[in-house]
């Protein structure tokens, strides 16, 4: 297998799209191509990450459509649909294509335009990833699964609503200075939990989770260009190497897990990624976790091995996971503030880490970050991809 480098990255503004899904994906891809300055080198493989275009945007065969809009035919292209983990899955597939020697310059583009439909439709669409007969028919949605998980987790480990709010406050502080972020506002403990207007400003969505414990419904697209590490010097930017990729799956119906407060797929995916990279959690300078719900950032920070089980909220409380702390988690603002265009999220996490490892993250730069880690969480933890990135080749 060849070592693989990320040689170009691009991303659109997240939020409510001004453009069509395909236009967003073209813009992100164009940014990545421009960033790498590929010149007349030919892209010889394209992997597109998306979850809901078939339902929300009346678009199927989205990889073919992207190739058409960008005049990249006859380059081989396919779409990867792996629920909310589609993004990292597509990066992984691109990695395999380059590592195997089958391709020399691969474009991975993730895009999602969820706000073309109303919130009810968007929530319905995402709920299709739950078990159709054992969960979906009951009206189970992802916030509901997260609410049930949170209640149990909080009870077992002494995590409080204040801890959940601390994740939101931290990630909104981070996202406030990310000009691509969907939500650019700061929030306070007073406003989220103790003020006079809490019932209106921060109502329950799926108790114990409140509105500000949930990520927004976002549109956005991101792209990366992958090349063999041996050719990375041909491109304009400092390369970042994909040092490790790990993936794991789990049962679909959450109630079947032996301990519903554990996320074994996160643990296994992270272990595999670290093993492949020959690194440990202590070697990581910056990470982007999948905080679709605040409780998930705490649980993932433990399952990935950054903190012992039941200690993640204590590290949060001590400020260790904040920009400037020992291990900044989601300096981009995470899903919570940067936004969660579902099928794109995994690609955008990789883009953010590349910016960090190049030293290009500007106001949310983690000083001299050399190694980054991302978790892209699909289903409610039934398909998880972890990626370790390393500065230079």
């Amino acid at each position: 297998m060849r070592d693989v480098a990320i040689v170009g990255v691009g991303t659109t503004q997240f939020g409510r799209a001004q453009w069509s899904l395909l236009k967003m994906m073209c813009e992100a891809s164009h940014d990545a191509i421009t960033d790498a300055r590929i010149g007349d080198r030919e892209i010889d493989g394209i992997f597109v990450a998306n979850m809901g275009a078939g339902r929300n945007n009346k678009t199927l065969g989205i990889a073919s459509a992207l190739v058409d809009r960008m005049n990249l035919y006859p380059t081989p292209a396919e779409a990867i649909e792996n629920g909310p983990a589609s993004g990292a899955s597509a990066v992984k597939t691109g990695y395999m294509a380059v590592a195997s020697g089958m391709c020399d310059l691969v474009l991975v583009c993730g895009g999602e335009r969820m706000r073309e439909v109303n919130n009810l439709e968007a929530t319905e669409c995402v709920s299709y990833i739950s078990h159709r007969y054992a969960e979906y028919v009951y009206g189970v949605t992802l916030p509901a699964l997260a609410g049930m998980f949170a209640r149990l987790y909080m009870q077992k480990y002494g995590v409080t609503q204040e801890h959940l709010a601390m994740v939101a406050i931290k990630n909104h502080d981070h996202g406030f200075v990310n000009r691509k972020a969907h939500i650019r506002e700061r929030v306070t403990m007073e406003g989220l939990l103790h003020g006079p207007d809490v019932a209106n400003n921060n109502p329950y969505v799926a108790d114990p989770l409140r509105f500000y414990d949930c990520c927004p419904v976002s549109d956005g697209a991101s792209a990366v260009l992958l090349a063999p590490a041996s050719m990375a010097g041909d491109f304009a930017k400092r390369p970042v190497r994909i040092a490790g990729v790990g993936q794991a799956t789990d049962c679909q119906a959450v109630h079947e897990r032996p301990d519903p407060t554990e996320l074994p797929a996160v643990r296994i995916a992270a272990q595999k990624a670290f093993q492949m990279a020959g690194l440990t959690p202590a070697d990581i300078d910056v990470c982007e976790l999948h905080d679709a719900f605040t409780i998930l950032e705490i649980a993932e920070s433990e399952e990935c091995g950054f903190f012992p089980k039941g200690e993640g909220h204590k590290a949060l409380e001590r400020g260790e996971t904040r920009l400037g702390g020992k291990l900044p988690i989601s300096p981009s603002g995470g899903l919570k503030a940067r936004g969660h265009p579902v099928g794109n999220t995994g690609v955008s996490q990789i883009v953010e880490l590349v910016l960090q490892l190049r030293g290009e993250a500007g106001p949310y730069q983690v000083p001299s970050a050399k190694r980054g880690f991302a978790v892209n969480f699909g289903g409610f933890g039934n398909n998880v991809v972890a990626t370790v990135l390393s500065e230079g080749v």
Partner: protein
Amino acid sequence: MAKTVDAARCKSCGKLMYPIHFYCLACKGREFEPVPIEGDGTLLTWTRSYALPLDYAQLFLTLGIIQMDQGIRVTGQLDIADPKTGMRVRAHVGKVRETMGKDIHGLIFQPVRG
């Protein structure tokens, strides 16, 4: 005939599971007999969800995961005003969703009284 929601018992090793899988989780057997989910259980966790999908006219749904005395866990709707984790609940089968004019039946739980 009264509607049921069925778990699956593996004909080779007797393992009871819900939902059904193509291979038995214990022995990879492929033949199962249906076993109606019924009786009492303990509420493991719950939520009052205002994040509803399509098909519901109400403001919220109360949902929970229940450890059944039968030895399986299930997800279902709670017809309980003030749920508490650890409380004893009883399974009923009733309408849980209506999609395109068609009723879908599933498990609904009420408190065990007395």
